[in-house]
C-alpha cells in the first residue's frame, strides 16, 4: 500500500499482524482455564480463545500506533514548534465507529449462540438439590431419596442443580465445569451441567458469605457410569424429614 502522508501504512499493518500472531500464540499456549470437565467447557473455552485472538489484534493496533507515533514524532530537542493542525478525518472516524460496532455485535451473537447451547435442557436430566449454608454445602438426590455432603454425579448425563440458600447468598462453581450460579435465599435458581470427564473436583463458593467464605468447599466426584453412581447413592443417608422442600426454603438469619 502506498504511504499516506509519509506513513508506511503497509509496514504498520504488517507489524500489527505480526504482533497479533505473536501475542495470540503466547496467550494461547498456556491452558488458562485449566481442565475441561463438562460439555460446556470446550464451547466456552473456544469463545475465550476467539476473544483472545481478537483482543490481541485490537491491543496490537493500539500498541503499534502508540509506539510508532512515539518513535516517529517524538520532538527533537529544542524544537518548540507545533504539530500539524489536523482536526480530524470524518472517514477515519466513521470507520472506527462502525467497524468496532460490527465486531462487538458479531461477538454478541456468537456469545448468544454459545449461551443457548450450554443452557439447552435435556429431558432425561437428573436433578440434584444443592443447599448452601454458612459455610458448608450439602446435596439431596430426590430421585434416590438420599442426602450427602459430597456431590457425586454420573458421567455423560445432564444434571439440573436446583440451588437453595439457607442464609445468605452463596455461589455454586466447579471451575472444570465452567458453570456458576448464585444460590439465593428465598428463591430457587438453576444450573445445568453435563459432566463428560470422570474425576475428583472441588465445588467452590464464589459469593462472599462471611468469615468462612474462603473455606466453603465441597468435594465433587464424577462417577464412571450411572451404575457406579447408583451404588454410591445406596450407601448414603436418606433425606431427613426436616429438610425444606425445594421452593419452600425458609431462610433463617444466622447472625442475629
Amino acid at each position, binding site marked *: 500500500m502506498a504511504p499516506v502522508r509519509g506513513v508506511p501504512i503497509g509496514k504498520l499493518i504488517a507489524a500489527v499482524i505480526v504482533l497479533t500472531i505473536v501475542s495470540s500464540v503466547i496467550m494461547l499456549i498456556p491452558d488458562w482455564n485449566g481442565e475441561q470437565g463438562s460439555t460446556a467447557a470446550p464451547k466456552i473455552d473456544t469463545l475465550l480463545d476467539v476473544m483472545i485472538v481478537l*483482543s490481541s489484534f485490537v491491543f496490537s493496533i493500539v500498541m503499534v500506533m502508540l509506539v510508532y507515533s512515539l518513535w516517529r514524532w517524538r520532538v527533537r530537542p529544542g524544537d518548540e514548534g507545533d504539530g500539524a493542525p489536523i482536526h480530524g478525518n470524518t472517514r477515519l472516524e466513521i470507520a472506527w465507529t462502525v467497524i468496532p460496532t460490527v465486531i462487538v455485535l458479531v461477538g454478541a451473537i456468537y456469545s448468544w449462540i454459545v449461551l443457548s447451547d450450554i443452557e439447552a435442557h435435556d429431558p432425561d436430566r437428573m436433578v440434584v438439590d444443592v443447599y448452601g449454608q454458612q459455610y458448608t454445602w450439602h446435596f439431596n438426590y430426590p430421585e434416590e431419596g438420599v442426602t450427602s455432603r459430597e456431590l457425586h454425579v454420573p458421567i455423560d448425563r445432564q444434571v439440573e442443580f436446583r440451588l437453595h440458600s439457607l442464609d445468605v*447468598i452463596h455461589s455454586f462453581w466447579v471451575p472444570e465445569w465452567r458453570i456458576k450460579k448464585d444460590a439465593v435465599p428465598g428463591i430457587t435458581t438453576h444450573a445445568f451441567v453435563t459432566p463428560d470427564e470422570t474425576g475428583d473436583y472441588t465445588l467452590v463458593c464464589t459469593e462472599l458469605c462471611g468469615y468462612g467464605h474462603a473455606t466453603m468447599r465441597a468435594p465433587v466426584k464424577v462417577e464412571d457410569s450411572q451404575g457406579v453412581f447408583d451404588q454410591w447413592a445406596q450407601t448414603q443417608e436418606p433425606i431427613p424429614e426436616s429438610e425444606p422442600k425445594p421452593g419452600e426454603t425458609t431462610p433463617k438469619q444466622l447472625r442475629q
Partner: protein
Amino acid sequence: MAGVTAALFRRPGWWRALTYTILAGAFGLALVVVLRKISGLPTFQTEQTGYPQVIVPAITAPLGFLVGIGCFDYWLRWAVGAPTFPKEREHENHGAFTWRDYFKVNTDHKVIGIQYICTTFLFFFIGGAMAMVMRAELAQPGTQIVDPSLFNGLFSTHAAIMIFVFVIPAFSGIANYVLPLMIGAPDMAFPRLNALSYWMLPIAGVLFVASFLCPGGAFDAGWTGYAPLSTGAPLGQSFFNLGVQFAGASSIATALNFLVTIVTMRAPGMNFWRLPLLVWANLSTSLLVVAATPFIAGVQFMVLFDRALHTNFFQSAFGGDVISYQHIFWFYSHPAVYIMMLPGFGIISEVISTHSRKPIFGYRLMALALIGIVVLSYSVWAHHMFVAGMFSWLRVPMMITTLLIAVPTGIKIFSWLGTLFYGKIHLRSTSMLFALGFVTTFTIGGISGVMLGMIPIDIHVSDTYFVVAHIHFVLFGGSVFTIFAGIYHWFPKMTGRMYDERLGRVHFWLTLVGMLGTFIPMHWIGMEGMPRRVADYSATFGDWNLAISVCAFVLGAAQLIFLYNMIVSWRFGPKAGPNPWRAKTIEWQVSSPPPVFNFDEIPRVVGGPYEFGVPGARHVIMPGEEAEVKEPERAGVGAPS
C-alpha cells in the same frame, strides 16, 4: 472568658466544630435513651445489627460538625433574617493567604480543589496501606497475618475508601480547581454549597475508617454490601451505610454545582463546541452523578432500615426480595464506573493534546462519545448479575448494550492515538507518561471488560480473580493513572512551582511495572479457579500469589516517591511560570497560582481550545490584550455553528 466562649460557641472553626460535634452527639444519644425509656425498652440495645445508641449519634455528630466548622453560618443568618455579612466581610472566607486557610471553610474553588486533593490522597494512602496488608496475607496460602474476619473488613474498607473517598472526589478536586478557570468563570456557581460538599467528604472517610473500632470489626460484606449478608452483619456495616450517604450527598451537590457552573457561567464566546474536553467530561459525569447516586443512597438506607428498624426490604423470609438489592445497587454502581472514568478521559485529552502540540483528533466525536457513554451506561447494570439468578431474559439485552459501550470508549482511544500522529510529542512531563501509560493499561482493562460482558465467559470467571484484575486495570490503570496525569499536569498551576521530573519518571515507571506485574497474573489465577475475596486459597496458586505480592509492594513503595516529590516540590520546587506547558486553555493564561478571583475582567473566547499549529488561531483574548485581535475565519473545530 468571653473569648473562650466565643471560640467554643460562636466563632466558626475547629473549636466550635469540636463543641458542636460533642453536643450533637450527646443530643442524639440522649434522644435514643429517652425514647427507649419512654417506650419501656432496655436503655441500650446491643443486638449485632441494632445499636441505635451508636447509629443516631453517628448521624447527629457529623451534622453538628458541619454546623460547627461553619458550613451553614451564612445560610442560617439569611434564613432567620439576621444580617449576613457586611459588604467588606463578604469575601472573608474566600481565598487562602496562609496555610491555615486550607483548614477552614473556604468558598474559593481553588482552595476547595486543593482541600479535596489533599484529603483524598490521605485516604489513598490509608486504603493503599490496607492493600499492602492484604497482599502480605495473600503472599502464601493459609492464614498468617490477619484472620479471615479482619481480611474481609480490610478489602471492604479498601474498596469503599478508594471508590467513595479517593477516586470520585479526587476528580471533583481537580475539576474544582481547573474547571471554573477553563470556562473563564470567577468561581463556581454556588461557592458555599461547594464548601459544604467538601466538608461532607472527610466525614465519610472517617466513618469508614472508624468502623474498625466497632464491636464485630469493620464492615466486611464487600464494598458491594450484598443483602442479606449486609443486613445481618455487625455494627460496622451501619458505618458503611452512613458513610455512603455523606460521600453521596457530597458528590451530588458537587455535580449540581458543576452543571449550573458549566451551563450558566461560561465566558462570552465559550459555546459548547469550544469547551475543553475536560469540561465536557465533567458535564457528562455530573449528569451521571445527579441521576444515579440517589439510587445507592436509597439502597443503603434500605439496608440500614432492615438492620436498625427491622423493615424487610431484603428479608426473603418476610417477603423481601434479595436480588432487588443488586438491581438498585448496580443501577448506581455501574454508572459509577463511568463517574470514575469520564473525568479521567477529560484529563487525558488535555494532556495528550498539549504535549503532542496538536488539536484533539475528532473533537466533536470525542464529546459525543462522552454523551454516548452516559446514555448507554444506564442500560448495562445487570451485566454484574449474569449469575445472580435474576430473570434470565434480561441477560442478552444487557450483554449487547455492554459490548456496545466499548464503541464510544474505543473512539476515545483511537482519537488520542490520532492526536499523537503528526504531532511533536514531548515526553518531558510525567503527566504525558501517565497519559500514554493509561492508553496502554486502559486498553487492556477495556478488552477484559468486553470478555466479561460476554455471558458464557462471565459465567465462568464472574467473582474470580479475573474480575479483580479487570477492575484494577480500569480503576488503577484507568482512573488512578489519569488522576496522576492530572496532578502532574496542573501541579505548576496549583502551587506555582515545578515538581521534580526525574522523581516523576521513577514514580511512573515503577508504578507501571508494579501495576502490570500485580494485576496481569490475576487474570490467569482467576480463570484457573481462584475466587475473589478470600483470605486463604488453594496451594496451587501459591507461586503466582507470591509474585503478585512482591509486585504489589513495589507498586506501593513507588507511591511514597510521589508523596515525597509533591511535598518537597510544593515547598522548595523552582518557580513555575504561568504556562510551563504552553497550553492554550484559559487556566494557563493567568498567573500560577491564579489570583483570588481568577480574572480581573472576564476573558473573551474566540476559538476552539486546542488550536495548536493553526496560524493566527486563538482560543481566548485575555483582558488587557490587544483589542485588535480578530476572530479567526469560520473554519475548523470551535467555529460558532
